């Protein structure tokens, strides 16, 4: 066994008033400084989590090192590093002194789900205030020790100086828990709206020396040496390996499970949750592949090839997003009318490692769950509900996982939900590892959508009417698979589609409508869910932006105007204008109408440029894509992608640059290749052959990032904004190169070739 978790018998107790310091045991490796382990090593109970206590968030150790705790996790974006930068900056300690503890329900305060570009914007802002209060509290202690008013103290590298006298932070706290000098107030604990109030004032960004620096990520060395522990690596004494046999059709139920003969594996059935468990993983895999489970037939889905018609036919409430002026009369009276329909497919998050979790449900009613969930406290509450117990009886320990991009955000962890039920049933720890087909079929996808666009121009080419009518299945269905299959009643759900994202353009007579559709197939499924979805990196806004930005390009073409200038004329937000201009300038944007003068759907190597803009959760981003096409194959070569982005105060430029590259490459993949296909029963794109990803050979030749820093504006997210740009910019660049507009994603070689042939 490579890794064994020994659960200590000690139980967490209250230690708020004892005044005893939790001492770091030297024998515990730095990477494992779970405070619970520290406490146990020191022979004391661990204090209960109380977010109004400074010690819940920050421990200053006698040696001057600092442990800080966040309920958020690091999905590979660099959150661990960036949050430590914020803490080190406010505390005035060296970056290397700060260790972050993330996502442990025993040790980390609940700061809500790591999703929606909120780690820096919300959790980071909360930690900044807490760290400022910690610094003020340390200065209060120093003032007494050095017999000098706080106003006479200076701090550098964790050492307080008053004239010739000094005191290190470590010496100030030795023998006591650091208590806030003034109360910490928390409102809306654990929610998106959570507010932290402290008396201390954070630094001015002009004083920053650690924030704003490209500090190398602290998690990377462990990831290249295998020292990092992924949830897939977790092994628990007595653990059984499980493979779940998921229903044949989305709404199929078990008719018979069959038996295994001559196998070392055992079959476990809890309602429609069927699994094969074994001591050895390969025995579980073999058993699951040979067990002949019979399912009822279910055919509640439309074919993916008929998705558009199915969406249009669905009955759903229509929500008005924008209603400005009078669209219809202005459109009717316009000199030039443009209309088009855009379509996006269902898509996968596509975790490179399929779902995996370990659960240990014990006979005393307590449970431990090992998960790479985006929300440990959310999963803790869900597991407690499943087990009919209180959250305090359940601990969730977060581990590194394959990048999940929202897949584990609201559907916290399907594999964990299954592992919990199986562990309870067999009375042993259970590791559930999905196979590739489980993940491709059963992951909650990003929804496919439909968009009718209409625009009117006056005789001078000015837009006088704009309409965007979207048909949107839900972005999220928060059903956990395990309890649904097992027949457990969980909290109600309202999975309906929703529009995400503002339209920054000042077009007159604008009407924007969203058909808030239910989930495909949900109405006829015994489980209540159909083709499940959950938040996929900029959910909803990805689809809205594709249709909106590509259609703005169509309007510009109809107006015979440069697509950049057309946008700039109808924007007033200076930050939006700035990112567009910055992207265009860095990319060498050719100011002219589109398509280009020599545009041809048949010319080999035809090249074009496309531009797109988005405002996502406070961050502005614009992109210019330059590409070339081979009409004989339909292959797109991305020559260069330039992204300009303004996310307010920059914490770590290198991390932001890597997030932009991530957004660009991942959505180049989505735009060029990805589509979840399904028949009337279930998903049919079950592997990487039927659901291909972009390869290295297809990645953009060059990716340029332009970061616009606004230290005076609070930081906003960087993991999502740029994902919205590639699909529309590619659509517009293809149009620029060939004069042919492609409006249905993905732009696979087959689709491009057919589109160009039809347009020739």
């Amino acid at each position, binding site marked *: 066994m490579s890794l064994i978790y020994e659960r200590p018998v000690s139980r967490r107790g209250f230690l708020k008033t004892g005044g005893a310091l939790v001492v770091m045991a030297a024998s515990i490796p730095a990477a494992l400084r779970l405070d619970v382990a520290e406490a146990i090593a020191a022979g004391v109970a661990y204090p209960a989590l109380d977010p109004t206590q400074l010690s819940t968030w920050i421990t200053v150790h006698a040696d001057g090192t600092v442990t800080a705790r966040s309920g958020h996790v690091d999905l590979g974006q660099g959150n661990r590093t960036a949050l430590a930068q914020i803490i080190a900056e406010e505390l005035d300690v060296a970056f290397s002194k700060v260790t972050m503890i993330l996502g*442990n329900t025993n040790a980390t305060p609940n700061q809500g789900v790591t999703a929606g570009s909120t780690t820096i914007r919300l959790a980071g802002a909360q930690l900044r205030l807490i760290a400022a209060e910690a610094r003020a509290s340390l200065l209060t202690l120093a003032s007494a020790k050095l017999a000098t008013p706080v106003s006479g103290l200076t701090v550098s590298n964790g050492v307080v100086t008053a004239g010739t006298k000094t005191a290190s932070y470590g010496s100030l706290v030795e023998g006591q828990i650091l208590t806030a000098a003034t109360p910490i107030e928390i409102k809306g604990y654990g929610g998106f709206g959570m507010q932290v109030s402290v008396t201390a004032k954070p630094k001015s960004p002009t004083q920053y020396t650690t924030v704003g620096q490209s500090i190398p990520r602290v998690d990377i060395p462990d990831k290249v040496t295998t020292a990092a522990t992924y949830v897939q690596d977790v092994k628990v004494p007595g653990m059984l390996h499980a493979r779940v046999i998921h229903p044949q059709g989305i709404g199929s139920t078990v008719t018979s499970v069959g038996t295994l003969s001559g196998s070392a594996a055992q079959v476990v059935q809890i309602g429609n949750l069927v699994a094969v468990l074994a001591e050895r993983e390969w025995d579980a895999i073999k058993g699951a592949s040979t067990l002949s489970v019979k399912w009822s037939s279910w055919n509640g889905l439309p074919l993916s090839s008929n998705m558009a018609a199915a969406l249009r036919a669905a009955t759903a409430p229509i929500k008005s997003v924008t209603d400005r002026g009078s669209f219809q009369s202005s459109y009717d009276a316009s000199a030039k009318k443009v209309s088009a329909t855009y379509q996006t497919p269902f898509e996968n998050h596509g975790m490179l490692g399929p779902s995996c979790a370990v659960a240990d449900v014990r006979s005393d009613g307590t449970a431990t769950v090992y998960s790479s969930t985006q929300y440990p406290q959310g999963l803790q509450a869900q597991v407690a509900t499943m087990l009919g117990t209180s959250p305090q009886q359940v601990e969730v320990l977060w581990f590194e996982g394959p990048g999940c991009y929202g897949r584990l955000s609201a559907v916290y962890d399907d594999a964990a939900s299954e592992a919990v039920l199986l562990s309870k049933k067999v009375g042993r720890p259970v590791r559930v590892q999905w196979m590739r087909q489980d993940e491709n079929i059963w992951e909650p996808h990003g929804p496919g959508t439909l968009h009718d666009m209409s625009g009117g121009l006056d005789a001078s080419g000015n837009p006088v009417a704009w309409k965007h009518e979207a048909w949107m299945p839900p972005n999220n269905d928060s059903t956990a698979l395990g309890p649904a299959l097992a027949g457990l009643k969980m909290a109600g759900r309202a999975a309906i589609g929703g529009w995400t994202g503002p339209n920054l353009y000042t077009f007159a007579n604008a009407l924007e409508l969203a058909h808030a559709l239910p989930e495909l197939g949900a109405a006829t499924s015994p489980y209540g869910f159909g083709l499940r979805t959950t938040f996929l990196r900029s959910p909803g806004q990805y689809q809205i932006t594709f249709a909106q930005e590509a259609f703005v390009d169509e309007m510009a073409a109809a107006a015979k105007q440069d697509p950049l200038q057309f946008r700039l004329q109808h924007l007033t937000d200076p930050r939006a204008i700035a990112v567009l201009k910055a992207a265009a300038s860095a990319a060498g944007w050719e100011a002219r109408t589109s398509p280009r003068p020599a545009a041809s759907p048949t010319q080999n190597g035809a090249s074009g440029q496309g531009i797109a803009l988005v405002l996502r959760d406070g961050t502005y981003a614009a992109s210019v894509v330059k590409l070339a096409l081979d009409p004989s194959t339909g292959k797109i070569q991305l020559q260069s992608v330039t992204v300009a982005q303004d996310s307010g105060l920059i914490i770590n430029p290198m991390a932001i640059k890597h997030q932009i590259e991530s957004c660009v490459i991942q959505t180049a993949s989505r735009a060029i290749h990805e589509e979840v296909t399904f028949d009337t029963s279930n998903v049919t794109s079950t592997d990487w052959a039927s659901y291909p990803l972009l390869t290295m050979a297809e990645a953009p030749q060059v990716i340029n990032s332009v970061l616009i820093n606004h230290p005076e504006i609070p930081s906003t997210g960087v993991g999502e904004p740029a994902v919205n740009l590639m699909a529309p910019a590619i659509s517009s660049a293809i149009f620029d190169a060939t004069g042919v507009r492609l409006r249905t994603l993905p732009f696979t070689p087959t689709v491009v070739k057919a589109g160009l042939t039809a347009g020739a």
Partner: protein
Amino acid sequence: MVGGAALLAERGASAQGGPLAITVNGKSHRVASSPDTPLLYVLRDEMGLRGPKFGCGLQQCGACAVLMGSKETRSCMLPVSQVKAAVTTLEGLPGLWAQHKGVATVALHPVQQAWIDEQVPQCGYCQNGMMVMAVDLLTRNAKPSAAEIRDAFTNTPPSAHLCRCGTYDSIIKAVQRASSMMA
């Protein structure tokens, strides 16, 4: 109220085993699993190695890659009984480089150092296969161009090495950096 988890690491080859033996990272290992067990599960579950990852079980993504001799090989479908050459996993890359340099030990293979220098990993799950592929490529082609790197990571059978986080650009830079370090 429940307590937390302390963590103990224990590495090394299994003490028990059957008649089948394979060489992994320079050491012989007697295989306890059945002969049809894919190498991946022997490496991960029996030997406690964590470099090779389960990504698809179909030889379609590259996360499970190891070196078989000097050739990048997918371990997820290869029955352990068919392993005919010495296996090197990510854990064994420093030893491979130490042997090449004629020194006792090195902390990191230059490819690993280059991966740190270029800050390649995001989630890191695919990077085992990417680093193994880089070592294979640099053994065959000491100074690959960007185009040759793209080609190797895409068109070497049985399938392209896939990254979902979008680190391809960083990988290309890191392979070229490693090439310089190894010259």
